[in-house]
């Protein structure tokens, strides 16, 4: 692996080799980015087995469409976008995008500083996985990928107001989960404070 890394020390060289369909370059790209891309897939799909299938499909698309990458923006961002599109295409096939669930409004505001220091990414993933599919998708697209409500509405075939309301509910749900995590992890004082504030 070390030898392969030496061969493609720069991203430009790697992209050139990928355009030439060099198997070593493809392997290197997979080794380098499969972890992050898998995280993207898991965030959207919520199931690791399905996420792996989407990851494979996404990489195949990356290898096929590498000639379309214009090297203007970030290569990783371009790949991430492909993975997101693949995940959304899967969810569209499943016809589960418009699933909705009425969740209660958030009453507790967590201590973000404590969460930032102690909350692990794997626990955050688990919290996202617990969200209903519609909430999860809009939250992922808006909060993490950075799309606007108009773009999300176009992508998912929903209205902007639906996107906004789903995002609002997703946030409320996640706040509740983070607050619960804080309570379980022993940061009781902060939780009490936040609860009293919310009351």
């Amino acid at each position: 692996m070390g030898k392969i890394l030496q061969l493609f020390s720069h991203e430009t060289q790697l992209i050139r080799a990928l355009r030439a369909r060099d198997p070593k370059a493809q392997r290197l790209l997979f080794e380098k980015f499969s972890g992050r891309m898998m995280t993207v897939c898991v965030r959207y799909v919520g199931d690791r087995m399905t996420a792996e299938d989407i990851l494979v499909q996404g990489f195949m698309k990356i290898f096929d469409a590498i000639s379309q990458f214009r090297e203007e923006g970030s290569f990783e961002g371009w790949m991430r976008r492909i993975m997101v599109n693949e995940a959304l295409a899967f969810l569209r096939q499943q016809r589960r995008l418009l699933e909705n669930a009425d969740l209660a409004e958030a009453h507790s505001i967590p201590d973000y500083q404590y969460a930032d220091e102690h909350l692990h990414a794997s626990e955050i993933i688990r919290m996202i996985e617990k969200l209903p599919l519609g909430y999860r998708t809009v939250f992922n697209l808006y909060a993490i990928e950075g799309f606007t409500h108009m773009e999300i509405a176009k992508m998912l075939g929903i209205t902007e107001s639906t996107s906004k309301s789903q995002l609002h509910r997703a946030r409320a749900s996640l706040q509740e989960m983070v607050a619960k995590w804080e309570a379980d992890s022993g940061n009781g004082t902060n939780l009490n404070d936040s609860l009293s504030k919310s009351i």
Partner: protein
Amino acid sequence: MDSKANNERLDELFRSKLETFETLAGDRAWEKLQKAQRPASRFPAPTRWIAAAVVAGVCLAAGFWFGIEREEEAMLTAADAPVRKENTGRLEEKEKAAPAENGIQAVVSEHERKDETAQTMAAEEKREKEVVVSSRKGSGAKDSVSPPVELPQPVPSDSGKLNTPVGATGEPATRVLVVYVTPVPLDETPAMEKEPEIVAQAAAVEEAPVKKKRGIQRFFKQLRNAKTGEKVDWEELGLSPQKTYANVETPVGSRQQHYQKKGN
């Protein structure tokens, strides 16, 4: 405003934590990717290998078969070479008329042999005639090209005249010529009739470099000989049954000697 700030902090928390987080993909993910990239083959791998082996085998068999046929042709051509020289004119005409096939060539050679026999007989007749001529001209005749042949001595008659008829009275009556013909074997025919050219040709044929056959061709030839009931030439195969037996026996003897030496 508090809720907006709260939302922003929540978004930031999730974004920052997930930005660099990596979830391990399964071990089979790369294999899946490779399988998906490879176009599916119509035939499974073993079938392809078997097909390749069959094709290679057929090609080899065809190669050997044509090699043997060529060899046979070459041998036939070599055997026919002196006959061709002998009857140059007629054979060339025959060759033009007949296609160069083995069977037909064999028939042609038979015809040539018949011609040869006829020629020999004609030569014998010619020699007989020459003998007659020489007997007429006497033993000192030099116009004959043929080498002197030992003729049976004339039987002296009582009158002391050579072959004079009993009833001859000196009149020019009919003379009876008695010719003693000694059958001469074909090998002892005069040198002129043997045509030394042919001898030279035969020698040339014998000395012609024989193409060294390949090991497998030799094996196939001997196999064919065995099949047709002909004698199998073990030497050509590089095998000597006697040697083999000897080799089998040799280690035993040497071992015994070895043990004997050790015992001493």
